């Protein structure tokens, strides 16, 4: 279709060119028409043939030389336009894709942020629990320690008391025995101890 339009256009253009190229012939034809009425409409072979030949020659020359260059230019232009259209289309698709991607990225980032916050919250929670627990155990340990310290203190006080009581008891006993025993009593103790005492041969 396009091709046909182009052909017609080219044909018209060629005719115009031809009529410019042969101005004398055209003028002569005009004169003939005026004189012969209807004969004006019928081509006169004398004029017609050379014109036809001229036309054909021109047609051939044009078709051979100008036509391909012309067509090449047209084609190039068409291709350019097509390419431009295609690029535009691609750009559009690309931008759409990028947009889509960005959107996904954004949502993912949002989700990630939420995740991080959640994790952080969870971490904080567990850290808090840990700290609380450790503080609690520490407090318990402290209390237990204080208790054992008190216990130890009490024990050592008791031991000291026991020691001093023992010391006192013994020293009092010592004094009492030392001063109160008569010689006879001493001798009876000695006698008893000799009887109880072990032997030199042992161990």
């Amino acid at each position: 279709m396009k091709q046909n339009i182009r052909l017609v256009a080219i044909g018209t253009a060629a005719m115009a060119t031809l009529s410019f190229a042969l101005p004398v012939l055209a003028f002569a034809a005009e004169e003939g028409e005026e004189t012969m009425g209807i004969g004006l409409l019928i081509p006169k072979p004398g004029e017609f043939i050379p014109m036809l030949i001229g036309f054909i020659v021109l047609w051939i020359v044009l078709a051979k030389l100008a036509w391909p260059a012309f067509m090449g230019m047209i084609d190039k232009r068409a291709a350019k336009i097509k390419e431009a259209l295609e690029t535009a289309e691609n750009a559009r698709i690309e931008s759409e894709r990028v947009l889509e991607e960005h959107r996904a990225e954004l949502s993912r980032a949002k989700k990630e942020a939420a995740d991080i916050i959640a994790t952080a919250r969870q971490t904080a929670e567990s850290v808090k629990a840990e700290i609380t627990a450790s503080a609690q155990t520490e407090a318990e340990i402290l209390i237990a320690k204080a208790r054992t310290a008190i216990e130890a203190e009490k024990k050592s006080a008791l031991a000291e008391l026991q020691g001093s009581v023992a010391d006192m008891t013994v020293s009092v006993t010592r004094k009492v025995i030392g001063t109160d025993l008569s010689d006879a009593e001493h001798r009876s103790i000695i006698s008893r101890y000799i009887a109880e005492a072990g032997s030199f041969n042992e161990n």
Partner: protein
Amino acid sequence: MKTSAVNIRAKAEVYARVLLEAAQASDRVFVLTGELAELLATVRGSLELRSALSEATFPEQAKKAIIAEIFSDYAPELLATFEVMVERGDLATLPRVCEFYYALAEEALGAIILDVSTVVPLDEELRQQIITKYSSQLGRGVLLREYIDPDLIGGIVLASHGKRIDASVSSQLENARQVLSLSQ
């Protein structure tokens, strides 16, 4: 100069034999065992005395004077032996001399010497009790060397040949004190 252990023993034996013979002559074998032990304790107990007697630069006369001053109560044969020991620088042999003399004396006396410490003097009955108990136990005669020691508070301490039976009230009280203060 340091004398070797063998040397010391040999010398100690000589001293002990001479001392025993002298003691036998004056019939003081048993008495000398006690005096010798006391002498040893005195010498050991005082660093000043030891260093004075073993000091080589000290004049012999001075040493003799010291001995005469401190040990004047002792039997003359013991003092004479001791003076020789000091003079010859054999003070280190004294413990061995003591040991040898003990062994020789017990052999000569045919009995074992038992040191007995009490707070009050023993009476005959107690002496008999001890002698019968230990002579039957040891299978030999027993001679008692008696000491009075008020620190014992009561009871009796028997000692012989480096062994000791402590049946004194004071040591028992000491034990009791330890047990009481440590028991829980």
